[in-house]
C-alpha cells in the first residue's frame, strides 16, 4: 500500500506530462503542416562547400 501512495501519483504525473507536451505541440503549430514537415527533413541546411568534399 505504501508503494502505491508513491507510484500512483508518479504514474499519473508522467501521463499528465505527456498530455501537457501534446497540448503544447498542438498550440505551437507542430501539427499545422504535415506535408512540409515530411519534406523539410530533405532540405540540406548547409550550402555545399565548394572546395572540400564532405563525407
Amino acid at each position, binding site marked *: *500500500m505504501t508503494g*502505491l501512495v508513491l507510484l*500512483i501519483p508518479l*504514474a*499519473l504525473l508522467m*501521463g*499528465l506530462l*505527456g*498530455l501537457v507536451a*501534446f*497540448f503544447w505541440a*498542438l498550440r505551437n503549430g507542430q*501539427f*499545422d*503542416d*504535415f*506535408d*512540409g514537415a515530411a*519534406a*523539410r*527533413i*530533405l*532540405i*540540406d*541546411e548547409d*550550402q555545399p562547400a565548394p572546395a572540400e568534399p564532405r563525407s
Partner: protein
Amino acid sequence: MSAAVRFEPPATGETVLVVPGMHCAGCMAKVERGLAALPAVHAARVNLTARQVAVSHDPALAPPVLIEALARIGFPAQPRSPELAPPPSAARPLLAPLGVAAFAAMNVMLLSVSIWSGAEGPTRELFHWLSALIGVPAILYAGRVFFVSAWSALRRGRTNMDVPISIGVSLATGLSLYETATGGADAWFDGTLMLLLFLLAGRTLDAAMRDRARAGVDALLRQAAPGALVLGKDGTLAWVAASDLLPGMIMRVAAGERLAADGEIVTGQSRFDNALLTGESIPVSGGPGAAVHAGTLNLDAPVDVRIAAAGQGTTLAEIARLMGAAGQARSRYVRIADRASRLYAPAVHTLAALSFAWWMIQGAGLHQSLVIAIAVLIITCPCALGLAVPVAQVVACGALMRQGVMVKDGSALERLESVDRALLDKTGTLTGGRPVPDPASLAALDPAAAQVALALASHSRHPLSRALIEALTQRGVSAAILDDVVEEAGNGVRGQWQGRTVALRRPEAGTGMATVLDMAGEPARLIGFADRLRPDTPEALAELAELGIASSILSGDNPAAVREVAAIVRLDSRAAASPVDKLAAIRALQDQGHRVLMVGDGLNDGPALAAADASMAPGTASDVGRQAADFVFLGEAFTAVPRTVRAARRTMRVVRQNFVLAIGYNVLAVPLAMAGLVTPLIAAAAMSLSSLIVIANSLRLTGAAK
C-alpha cells in the same frame, strides 16, 4: 543561413503569400532562402500543406517586392486576400480530444488491470475513484464531439451513428459512477474511454482525408485578377480593386495579366488564353470590338477593355455559381456508415430494452436489470463499426496515391463504386490537352534548322512554341545563337542567324494547328501540331466497358474535332456542349436511374464535375476542374480511370466485410451480455479484438490500386 526560425513578433510586418508552385523540399528551400536573402526580411517559413509562405519583414517592405523576388527564382505568388484565409481544418479540432482520450484510456486501463488481477476492498475502491477522477472529465471532454453531433441530429428528428454512441457512453459513465459511489465490483470507465479512443481515431482519419481534399479550395477566386488599372477621363491610371469595378469603366490590361472583368476591347490587339474558361489550349486573337472574359490571360500586348460586367456578373462568377448549385445534390448523399447506423441504432436499443424487461420479469431487481441492459449497450457500441469505413478508405486512398490518383473526398470511393455510366470530356481528358508537334515533320528538320527553331521558339510564350521547345529538347537539340529577336503579336518570332533572317510564324493558310519555319534562302518548313489521344485511351475504355460502365464523349469543342476523336475510340459523342448542356446531360442520365462518372478538365466542366455522382480530373486540369473533381489522376495514363473504379469496388467490398465482421462480433457478444455474463474485462477484450480484426482486414487493401 537559418531560414526556419519562428517569428519574433515585435516591430515587424508579416505577409502571407500564396505560392501554388511549391511541391517538394527543394521548392521549400528555394523559397525560404530566396526570401531570407532579401535584406529587409527577418524570416520566411513555408507551409507546404497550404502552399503558403509566411514572411516577417521590416514594416516598410511592401508585398510586391516579395512577389517580385519570388518571381525571379521562378515561383509565381499572390498575396493572400483576407477572405481566402485557409478553411478551418476538420482534423485539428479532433486532435486534442484524441490526445485526452488516449491519455485517460491508458491510465485508467492501468488501474483496471490491477482490479482485474484481484484488487479487493479499499484498494479497489481507491482505484475506482482514481479511474472516475481521470475518466469523467476525459469522457466529457473527448465525448463532446459525439454528443454535439448526436444532439443536432436528434433535434432535427434524425438519427446517426453518434446517437447510439452518446447514449451508450453516457449510460456507461453514469452506471460506473454509481458503482464507484456504492462500492460496487465493476466500473466501466476503461471500456468507455477505449471506445471513445477508437472512435475518435476513426473520425480523425476521416477528417484528415477531408482536409487534404479541401487544400487549394480557394483556387477559383484566386484566378480572377484582384483588380485592374482603370483609365480615368483625364487620362490618368488608377488601381481599382475587382469588387469596385463598374460596367462602363475602361481598364488597361498589360500583357501577362488576367482580366478582372468581362468586357469589350476598345483599343489594342492581342491574343487571349482561354484555357481556364474552356480547357482549350489554343489562344484566340481579339481586336477592337471583341468580347473578352474575366479570368482569361492576356498574352501579347496591352489592351484597353470597356467593362461590361464585373464581380458577381462575370462569366467566371456565373460558372462558380452553377458549380455551387450543382454540388448540392451530392451533399445530400448519405454515407454508408450513416445508412448502416440507421438500421443499427434502433436494433441495439430494442435489444437493450428487451433484456431489461426480461430480467425485470425474472425478478432480478432494478439494479441488476439495469446493469445488464447497459452492458448490452456498451458491448454493442459501434466501435468496430466506426472504424469499418474510415480505415478501409484511408488504406485504399494511400494505395491509390502511390499510383498517382489523389482522392479528394472521403465519400468519393463510395459514390464511385456504383457508377454505371461515364461521360468523358475530349480536350485534355481523352487527349493530352496540349498540342504535340508532328514527329514526322520534326524528323524532317536538319540539325541546323532544329537548332534555329528551338532558339526562335524559346523567345515566345505561345503554346505551340512551348510544345516545340519541349519536343526539341527531348530530342537533344541545343539552341542556335540568334541576334535581334523580336516577337510580333499574333504573327510569330523573327531574328538574325549567321547573317540570315529566320522566322517562326503563323502559316498563311489556316488549316489546323501548324507553324512555319522560314530561313532566308531555303523553302519554308511546315511543322504540324495535333492534340493527340493519350496513348492508352482505347485500352482504358475497353477496361471501363468490362467493368460494366458505358462511356460517351461530352465535349465543348467543335463537332468536327469531336467526331474525329469519337471515330478513333468508337464512342457516342456530343459536341459544342456548354456548361449548362453538360449539367443537363448528367441530370438526364441520373433521372433515368444511372450513376454517372464525369471525367473532365476545363472550367466549363466544373459544374458537370460537381453534379455527377463521381468525378475525375487529370492533374493537368484547370484549378477549377481539379477542385470540383473527387479524384485527380497524375501523369499521362488514362487507365487510371478504370484502375480507380476497380479500387473503389474492392474498397467497398472490404467495407462490407468489415460491417459483417463488426456485426458478427455483436451476434456473438450480445447473447453473453443479455445473459448477464459480460464483465468489464470481457467487454474491453472483445472491443479491442473486433477493432483489430477490422483494421487487419482493411490493411488487405494496400495493393488495391494495382
